């Protein structure tokens, strides 16, 4: 029988400082949802080292400013970056999905019951597939901050990012924050990552050169996934 071991595909040990813990009492809803038993180490098999492949999306799916009859309210921004592996090599063909609140900090979702207006010209969701350089981009508006229900703290302005592919181990859901936001210091979700350098990697770089002159401001946000991109 053939030997199944493909040793070079086993990923390096994980950087444990990058993620938050499951239990972070300041974010109250972790208290009953955090597993009590430590997760069982799993040596990666073909199940964990493979994942879905995505074809390039349709043009315009990454432009959140063109989803209504006219432009949404808010400060227009362009967010660009690359999806990379831990060696700095691009992850091509990764699906990047992004969602966010509108400029008033309100989500288009039945469960967002907060007293703030919806914007008829803003849905707040987009997607794109990374190119050969791992690059992605979104055109959108800067979201508003919003208060956390039944709490004293507000969420700072943030974009939700989901990156899928090319392997189960590389799968990531995270949030992007804006530099200099005074709400970051009291945000239990941002601060759930204990390592300061690690959590600051979630803050985009202000990069006006990435925007459209006279039209939009630019931000750069690279996303580094676990593991190695396929050759």
């Amino acid at each position, binding site marked *: 029988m053939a030997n199944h071991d493909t040793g070079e595909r086993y990923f390096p040990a994980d950087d444990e400082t990058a993620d938050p813990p499951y239990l972070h009492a300041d974010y109250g809803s*972790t208290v009953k949802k955090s597993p009590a038993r430590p997760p069982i180490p799993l040596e990666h098999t073909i199940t964990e080292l493979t994942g879905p492949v995505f074809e390039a999306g349709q043009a315009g799916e990454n432009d959140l400013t063109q989803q209504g009859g006219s432009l949404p309210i808010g400060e227009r921004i362009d967010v660009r970056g690359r999806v990379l592996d831990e060696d700095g090599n691009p992850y091509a063909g990764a699906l990047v999905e992004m969602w966010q609140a509108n400029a008033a900090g309100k989500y288009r979702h039945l469960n967002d019951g907060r007293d703030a207006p919806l914007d008829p010209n803003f849905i*707040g*969701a987009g997607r794109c597939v990374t190119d050969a350089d791992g690059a992605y981009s979104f055109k959108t508006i800067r979201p508003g901050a919003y208060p956390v229900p039944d709490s004293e703290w507000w969420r700072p302005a943030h974009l939700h990012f*989901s990156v899928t592919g090319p392997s189960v181990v590389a799968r*990531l859901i995270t949030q992007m924050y804006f530099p200099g936001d005074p709400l970051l210091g009291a945000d239990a979700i941002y601060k759930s990552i204990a390592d300061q350098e690690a959590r600051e990697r979630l803050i985009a770089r202000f990069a006006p050169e990435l925007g459209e002159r006279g039209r939009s401001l630019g931000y750069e946000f690279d996303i580094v996934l676990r593991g190695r991109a396929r050759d």
Partner: protein
Amino acid sequence: MTRKRTGSQTIGPFFNVALLREDDSDLTRRTPGGPQAEGEVIEIRGRVTDGDGAPCPSVLVEAWQADAAGHHGTEGDPNFAGFGRAVTDNDGCYQLATVMPGPVPGKGNSWQAPHISLSLFGSGLLKRVTTRAYFPDQDMNTEDPVLSAISDGSVRSTLIAKSLNSGNPRKFEFNIVLQGPGETAFFDL
């Protein structure tokens, strides 16, 4: 140049409009209305509960598995999606339609019993939990390297789905307990 990894943050409660598309929970076809994958169509359903036994609504359940012949992704059946998503309802319940996966190679000369990799994302989960659903009455389960490495039988048994019927399509129940008695075995990837 070496780069440090981007950390996880919670998916939050408002992801539906961005992450869920029609027929995402049906892995048996690559495109809605397209040709059906080879193999036995099955249904997996279950309930996600927290440390109080309360249902967890709005949890994203993501599945990845081999096709009926045991091949993943582009190596496998071109009509099989392999990847799927479901979201739990107000009772914490999710449901996926798929085909019974084939056995897949493990480390060394070993074979892994048929299984589905499941990752869960939800409010109150700062990072995902990852588990595997195996199937009852599979002789290969006793030789499976991942199951065999779990010495506590009560923990190991949380990874085996329950058979709900003997009809067609076969239905399986795979409940996921995030915390406390009966807590599901989660993996550190």
